[in-house]
């Protein structure tokens, strides 16, 4: 059962080929047996899952149940789950049990999906390798001495290892797409504001967005249909028509104009990765798409702009963790200042502290205009690059990241080496555009991701392109050794 896609599981559940209880127990057994090898899941909610599965089976028997009813999923541990620890990968929230559900969690609960547990992640979603998690790194199922990517590395590894057919994830600078690429699965970051962020622990509020991870584009379409909603509780969720993402999957892509940005194929791109991505472009051309050379001239400024904007917003968002209202508190504070500064020094890991300090610096008196003001202007330039490109093309394609999964510790002590991992993904967050990653090849037995960037709210078209690509390729069906 673990090799079935969600679309296949839905058919099996609705035709009573198996029950949700059987399916749920099957995945719980897999998690118990295999998760110790990967550390992808950090909380298992077996009792609650089985109760939800019993309820789902009743709804399925009654008929008319929603598509995802009875389907097991995992949530990234950034989404608040009522009564279940939500750590955000941090010691700061190791004891935090939210009294409410995130809207995304609520949407899946309404649909009758079964939550198996919570996935590991980089602390407060700050990282591209999962090495910053308080709970230890996640291992890549394709090669356990390599990182799974980050920050949604637990979700990506869990889907790749078939511990669940799908998982939720979030993306601030590439945190859905980069781990999806490194673990050989399909992941989608929707347009900013498409999915409610209520109950999703904030990192950088003008960039954060939640999205699905699964093995196929068809499954991502089903999941996004459940996740996307206009939410009164999130004033940044956008009132825009929600498409039927599954309905257009089989549209022909004949005549589709694909933009190929020269900046995404320049120095720093691994040769094998480039070959795989170029082959994918040829495959799409063979299906009738037209390749158009384009330029995104300000791409090179996206990483520097991001490392002003994201830390600045993070330093404000993370000021709430003060040891007073919830979460970690240091022992025996001698006064209030000591309570704050020791709680934060002991509760936050090194990378989170670094980003708070950078953000504080960029926002401090005398530096604000030179850093934050300048970065916001550059953000406008990056956005304009895309606006101009989308006047000529329907989608933009390129690599998701510069190379396949790297070894633990290989980025050394310089934080900037790790930051460059997101060089192709960050610009879409700055512009608020949707982006996805689809498996498109293997280099040294490690997966390569093809990135598809769409115009605002064009998720249906991106999923259509990805689905058509997956009809003529087999990369998304490959499983790590020992898994299938």
């Amino acid at each position, binding site marked *: 059962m673990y090799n079935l896609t969600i679309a296949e599981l839905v058919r099996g559940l609705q035709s009573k080929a198996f029950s949700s209880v059987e399916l749920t127990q099957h995945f719980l057994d897999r998690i118990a047996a295999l998760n110790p090898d990967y550390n992808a899941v950090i909380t298992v909610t077996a009792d609650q899952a089985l109760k939800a599965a019993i309820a789902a089976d009743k709804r399925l028997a009654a008929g008319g149940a929603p598509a995802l009813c009875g389907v097991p999923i995992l949530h990234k541990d950034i989404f608040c789950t009522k009564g279940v620890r939500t750590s955000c990968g941090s010691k700061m929230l190791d004891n935090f049990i939210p009294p409410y559900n995130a809207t995304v969690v609520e949407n899946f609960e309404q649909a009758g999906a079964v939550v198996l547990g919570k996935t590991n992640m980089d602390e407060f979603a700050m990282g591209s390798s999962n090495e910053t998690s308080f709970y230890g790194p996640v291992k890549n199922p394709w090669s356990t001495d390599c990182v799974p990517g980050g920050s949604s590395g637990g979700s990506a590894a869990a889907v790749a290892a078939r511990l669940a057919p799908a998982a939720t994830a979030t993306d601030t600078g590439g945190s859905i797409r980069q781990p999806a690429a490194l673990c050989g699965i399909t992941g989608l970051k929707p347009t900013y504001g498409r999915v409610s962020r209520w109950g999703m622990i904030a990192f950088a509020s003008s960039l954060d967005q939640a999205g699905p991870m699964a093995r196929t584009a068809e499954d991502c379409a089903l999941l996004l249909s459940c996740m996307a909603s206009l939410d009164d509780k999130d004033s940044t969720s956008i009132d825009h028509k929600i498409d039927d993402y599954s309905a257009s999957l089989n549209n022909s892509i004949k005549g589709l104009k694909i933009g190929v940005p020269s900046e995404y194929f320049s120095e720093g791109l691994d040769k094998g990765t480039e070959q795989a991505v170029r082959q994918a472009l040829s495959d799409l051309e063979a299906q009738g798409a037209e390749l158009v050379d384009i330029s995104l001239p300000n791409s090179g400024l996206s*990483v520097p702009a991001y490392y002003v904007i994201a830390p600045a917003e993070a330093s404000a968002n993370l000021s709430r963790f003060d040891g007073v209202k919830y979460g970690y*508190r240091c022992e025996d504070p001698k*006064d209030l200042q000591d309570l704050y500064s*020791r709680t934060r020094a002991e509760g936050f890991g090194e990378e989170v502290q*670094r980003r708070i*300090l950078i953000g504080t*610096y960029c926002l401090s008196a005398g530096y604000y205009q030179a850093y934050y003001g300048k970065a916001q202007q550059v953000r406008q330039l990056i956005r304009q690059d895309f606006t101009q490109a989308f006047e000529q093309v329907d989608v933009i394609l390129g690599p998701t990241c510069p190379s396949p999964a790297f070894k633990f510790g290989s980025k050394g002590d310089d934080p900037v080496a790790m*930051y460059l991992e997101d060089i192709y993904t960050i610009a879409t967050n700055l512009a*608020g*555009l949707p982006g996805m990653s689809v498996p498109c090849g293997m280099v040294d037995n490690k997966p390569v991701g093809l990135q598809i960037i769409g115009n605002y709210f064009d998720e249906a078209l991106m999923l259509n392109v990805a689905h058509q690509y997956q009809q003529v390729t087999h990369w998304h069906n490959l499983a790590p050794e020992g898994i299938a």
Partner: protein
Amino acid sequence: MNIKRQEIEKLATLARIAIDESTIAEVTERLGSVLELVDQLQAADTSGVEAISHPMQGTQRLREDEVTELNQRQALQAIAPDTEEGLFLVPKVIE
């Protein structure tokens, strides 16, 4: 961009993060490396470019000024480090 040790100490105070004396040199070096990266921004010609804080230049949706939150004081205080009679406790601030 070189950042000085004294600046790091000031930032640590502003950010309310205690930095251990033994790690301050390392913190300074790594922060300097990140600031060198972001300094690439200074080369960009942004004259006349409007700054944006929202990716799609959107505006916040407004709603009627009505109470929508339930009173969850008990549930919220149940997860606090220290409370008494419905109040959050912190070390004494007034002598």
